[in-house]
């Protein structure tokens, strides 16, 4: 199969990217709501509104990560194996955080005792924050490069993953998800609570822009292989334009009270950021440093062309159907949150 000169490996590089982008955009606002949970929602009723804003959808959103993991396993088994065994403790922490986040949403409002609710509120917030930070740190390491030996195995340590660049990427991700979550909440809440949520949007946008600018400077200075694609093909810089416009559009739409358009802008900005990340890293899936020749790429880490072809058929059948019913389900749950007896 041939897609206008694209080979199957590149197609799968893009598809895995699409799945993780779907995850970042969709679970990004769930996690962002979690990050804001303790700070913005104070009374029990408000916290229930926050949880019910994401209640019907967070579960389906998390599936993007699970499917992304499965697709990575199928299309690039060597990457799946090296990254998850190499980042062992970091991933165990991520899994633990995601477990707490998930069950906290489900369990919190099922019992009225204050201590019970307080415990799960904290679990939800801490689980969301830790997951977000670790996702950012992982992406930071992928871009920065990690030590890979000649067998293709990770040769670094857990603490070695926590270098300043990766942590900066982690902080950037937290601010981005918090911003995205706040915009989503503005869409789903009303009255006094919405006013309080709206106040947080601009500071979060500024925090995100500051950390992203710092991150970009660091990338330009210290991560030359990521910027190389842009030097080689300067027209890739046009990717930056829609991201800047989308982010600039957010406060404008929020001021006009058009939260839905603000939310769409935020989604578009995140898609653009992921595209920039993908273009910068292609063809590397895991960049190796200090030995770039050991890097895992879309070509040396991939499954056989036969499997990539079969998987593409599966994706082409499955993804449109998934998108169609996911959109319908979002449509059913449109509008402001109303607490009823089935609510969390």
């Amino acid at each position, binding site marked *: 199969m041939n897609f206008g000169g694209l080979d199957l490996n590149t197609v799968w590089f893009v598809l895995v990217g699409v799945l993780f982008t779907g995850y970042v955009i969709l679970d990004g606002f769930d996690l962002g709501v979690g990050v804001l949970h303790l700070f913005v929602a104070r009374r029990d009723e408000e916290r229930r509104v926050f949880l019910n804003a994401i209640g*019907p959808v967070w*579960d*389906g959103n*998390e*599936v993007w*990560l*699970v*499917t992304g*993991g*499965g*697709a990575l*396993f*199928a*299309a*690039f*088994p*060597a990457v*799946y*194996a090296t*990254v*998850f*065994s*190499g980042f*062992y*403790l970091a*991933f*165990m922490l991520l*899994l*633990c955080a*995601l*477990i*707490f986040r*998930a*069950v906290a*949403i*489900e*369990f919190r409002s*099922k*019992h009225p005792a204050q201590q019970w609710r307080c415990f799960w509120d904290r679990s939800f917030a801490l689980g969301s924050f830790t997951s977000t930070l670790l996702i950012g740190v992982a992406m930071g390491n992928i871009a920065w490069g990690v030590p890979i030996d000649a067998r293709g*195995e990770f*040769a670094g340590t857990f603490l070695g993953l926590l270098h300043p660049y990766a942590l900066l990427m982690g902080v950037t991700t937290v601010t981005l998800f918090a911003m995205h979550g706040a915009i989503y909440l503005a869409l789903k809440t009303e009255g006094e609570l919405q006013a309080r949520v709206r106040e947080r949007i601009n500071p979060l946008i500024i925090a995100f822009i500051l950390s992203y600018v710092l991150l970009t400077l660091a990338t330009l200075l210290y991560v030359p292989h990521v910027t190389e694609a842009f030097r080689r093909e300067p027209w890739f810089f046009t990717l930056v334009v829609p991201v800047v416009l989308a982010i600039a559009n957010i406060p404008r739409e929020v001021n006009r009270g058009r939260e839905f358009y603000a939310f769409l802008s935020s989604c578009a900005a995140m898609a653009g950021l992921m595209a920039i990340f993908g273009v910068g890293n292609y063809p590397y899936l895991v960049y190796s440093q200090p030995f770039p020749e050991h890097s895992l790429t879309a070509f040396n880490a991939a*499954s*056989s062309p*036969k*499997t990539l072809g*079969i*998987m593409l058929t*599966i*994706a082409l059948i*499955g*993804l449109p159907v*998934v998108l169609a*019913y*996911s959109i319908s*389900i979002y449509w*059913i*749950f449109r509008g402001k949150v109303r607490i*009823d*007896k*089935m609510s969390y």
Partner: protein
Amino acid sequence: MTTELLARLQFALTITFHYLYPPLSIGLGVLLVAIEAAWLKTKNPLFHQMARFWTKVFALTFAIGVATGIVMEFEFGTNWATYSRYVGDVFGSALAAEGIFAFFLESGFLAVLLFGWDKVGPKLHFFATCMVALGAHFSAIWIVVANSWMQTPAGFHIVGDGLHARAEVTDFWAMVFNPSSMDRLTHTVVGAWQAGAWLMVSIGAWYLLKQKHREFACLSVKLGLTLSLIASVLTLATGDRSASGVARNQPAKFAALEGHWQTGPQAPLHVVGWVDAQTETTRGLALPGMLSWLAYGSAAHPVTGLRDIPRDERPPVNFTFQLFHLMVGIGFAMIGLALWASWALWRKTLENSRTLLWLLVISVLGPQIANQAGWWVAEVGRQPWIVYKLLRTSQGLSAVVQANQIVASMIMFTGVYLLLFAAFVFLLNEKIKHGPDETDLQPTGKLALGFKGGAA
């Protein structure tokens, strides 16, 4: 302890805890479809009340199933990196297909099932419930296909050698329909139906014992028991097929199931027994010739004994033997209990027999123990192979993961899972104490539309 044993224990711990929940979701999913179909057809508000109550129980099991399932998706990579590189081309595609075809469907429509009561009409709600149940079954299909490929690999070839060897797909459908996948899938699914069905029976019987919510309880017991009866008989039939498949495809595992040492005809079937692997003997109550007959339809047919399997290719025999017999014993007990309770229900004596009601209350443990024992048999009986006859478990480990990292993560998972289990039992108990909601006899919102005799 070696890294290999620790990694295996970690997988056993996380998968065993995870597998408490998906069978309940699969079984309850089927029952929810039946309940909502009955409600649509009869418009009896009792069915609406049942749908509401059992949906809440379903939500609880589903939540933990999802939370613990995400660990499984990544654990192949964390602890079994070499295995993952070796099988990714084949095994990975089944796992990815599970994500795209099953998980999205399940969790997407779960939103409508749980929160859509007042937002969509009864038919759309029924459709959503069907999709959730279908998604749960799709998930079972793909994961059992993937595991069956590890038991009876097919549709692949090995490319490269030494460290770079790996399995690559040659025939996708041969991989999907490998020799054991359909037998094991049907057996797994009906086992899951039993888990959900007996949970419904158990809670219903508890209300009957406490003389609460009588109408609700009777109908729940009746419905649960219907599925229990069907599923327990099907479990026997599919189990028989599955076992003769094992005899043909995995002779070492088959010999271990029965502690069968000497190859030959008239192989005996043990009802109970104890295996001594040192002296290569099995003592116990045995029916001569039955094993040959069950596996091949003829007592004269020889069955391979463990003495003909090289020592380093034998699974732990007594462990496999005991868990297999535990599973089979419970399987027969469930059929007996289902028949007894159905008969009592038919004679209308069920509500008066406290012994039987108590048995039904604890029946929920039966399928749970048997399902777990069955999976332990399947996995331990395949040892020392991680992919049968292709890759040893000891060769599949992550090269860079140290024993202390595994210990640390195991301590973490044990703590987290104990907490989750305690919270689950606590909340389920609360739900049961609270019981079905009387106001649920009156549908609200869009559900009430087109509902004759419903809310005015």
